[in-house]
């Protein structure tokens, strides 16, 4: 997953590291400074400050100029990985703030410094993720989750995968077959529900999806079910009538969470669409499917920062188990780790 982005970030890590190393190679006679903590030095540090630090404390100050080329490379690498411009700017800004003007103790590993900075910058844009199990535990049941998104991104399969995930976590689940538009959609979700052993509420094809999902909620209330997963038909955000239908579903069903589903491989398009859906019907969290096919990782890195909504799950294959709760720390480890 995100192999291309990983390669690029590893290259950026080496590039920034060698820039610091080349510009700040310590003179041998100073040796390591005795146990002083590295403190950021304001960018307004005067020449005298720098010399003082360099001579007295045996430390080096990393300057803007030394990093300029490496940061420019990092910027290009991120953009080439489809990381949104605003997110790229945020990462570069973070790295710059963190490194420029910083005292680097002689002997301190440059790589550790760079990895630490990149890690913090990525975690900053990735947000905190969204723990669905925690959310369900801390809210009144049934928790109603409405899935929205454009056509063909794997919404129905995601509903089934999330259902299987929640069932494994010990929650009782009912699925509302709210995609009454697409031919075969009800059949599809029916088969999924049967395979994972989850009750499904369905009407005929062409029925009002609001009515189906209302029934699903009523069923959950009367049977003390923990979670209602509401599937809906895929739609483009530009189709006003379909978006109005979604708005009606929202009014009738009163979901606790609206989850926007899109595919990671769509890159920047997924971000633009998510923002549009958020504007029209709202979105509380995002699921990105087909992350295993996405080498660039741009959408996964950018979506939380760009639309301000957390990434909840990543779909990583065809099986029901192929869904992983999005953990910013795990993703950053995968991107920057040595393994």
């Amino acid at each position, binding site marked *: 997953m995100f192999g291309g982005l990983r390669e690029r970030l590893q290259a950026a890590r080496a590039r920034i590291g060698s820039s610091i190393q080349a510009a700040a190679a310590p003179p041998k006679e100073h040796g390591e400074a005795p146990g002083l903590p590295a403190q950021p030095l304001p960018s307004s540090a005067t020449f005298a400050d720098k010399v003082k630090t360099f001579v007295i404390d045996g430390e080096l100050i990393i300057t803007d100029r030394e990093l300029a080329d490496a940061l420019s490379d990092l910027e290009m690498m991120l*953009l080439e990985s489809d*990381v949104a*411009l605003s997110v790229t700017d945020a990462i570069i800004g973070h790295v710059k703030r963190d490194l420029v003007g910083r005292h680097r103790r002689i002997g301190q590993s440059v790589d550790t410094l760079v990895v630490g900075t990149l890690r913090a910058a990525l975690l900053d844009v990735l947000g905190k993720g969204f723990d669905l199990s925690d959310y369900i535990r801390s809210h009144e049941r049934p928790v109603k989750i409405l899935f929205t998104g454009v056509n063909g991104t794997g919404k129905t399969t995601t509903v089934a995968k999330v259902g299987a995930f929640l069932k494994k976590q010990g929650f009782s689940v009912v699925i509302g077959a709210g995609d009454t538009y697409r031919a075969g959609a009800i*059949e599809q979700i029916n*088969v999924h529900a*049967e395979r994972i052993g989850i009750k499904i509420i369905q009407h005929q094809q062409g029925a009002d999806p609001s009515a189906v999902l209302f029934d699903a909620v009523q069923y959950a209330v009367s049977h003390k079910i923990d979670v209602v997963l509401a599937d809906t038909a895929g739609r483009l955000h530009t189709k006003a009538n379909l978006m109005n239908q979604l708005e009606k579903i929202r009014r009738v069903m009163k979901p606790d969470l609206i989850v926007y589903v899109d595919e990671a491989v769509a890159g*920047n398009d997924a971000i633009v669409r998510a923002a549009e859906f958020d504007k029209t019907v709202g979105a509380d969290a995002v699921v990105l499917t087909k992350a295993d*096919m996405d080498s660039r990782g741009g959408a996964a890195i950018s979506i939380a920062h760009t639309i301000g909504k957390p990434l909840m799950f990543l779909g990583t294959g*065809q099986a029901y188990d192929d869904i992983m709760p999005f953990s910013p720390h795990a993703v950053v480890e995968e991107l920057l780790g040595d393994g």
Partner: protein
Amino acid sequence: MEQIDQREMLTLEHYLKEYGQQAEIFAGQLELLENGRMEALAAIEALQGLLQSGDGTVLLQIGGGASMRAQVLEPEKVLVNIGADVIVERSNKEAVEFLQDRVTEMAASEKKVAETLDRLRTQMNEIARRIEQGYQQAVQAERAAQPSSAPSDQDA
């Protein structure tokens, strides 16, 4: 031979349909990737050709099958969409290198999608085989249920 009941046959048919839909989506994705790679390869060829052509004259397609001769003012400078809808100016050589990297990336993605598609098709073949087997069993069971001494024409 393992017996397949009516209910299992129905489920298998649903699976087959669902896998078919998934396969269609992946096939579409594969086509998109392939088109993207071909486009990038054509762009590489055009950029390299422009440098070799000397005066930078190209045929500009204006639609309806009509083209005009046009001259590229700066064949050395190329505007490239590098991702995230960001367009940067690159030298011809840099643009070619960038596109070559993209081609490699897309080829790797194509390989992954093709592998997934292959897996899906294998599963579909297996399901189709099971359905066929169930159908044959049903036909045989029906034949066996018919009375063995059916009246012949001669008895009439």
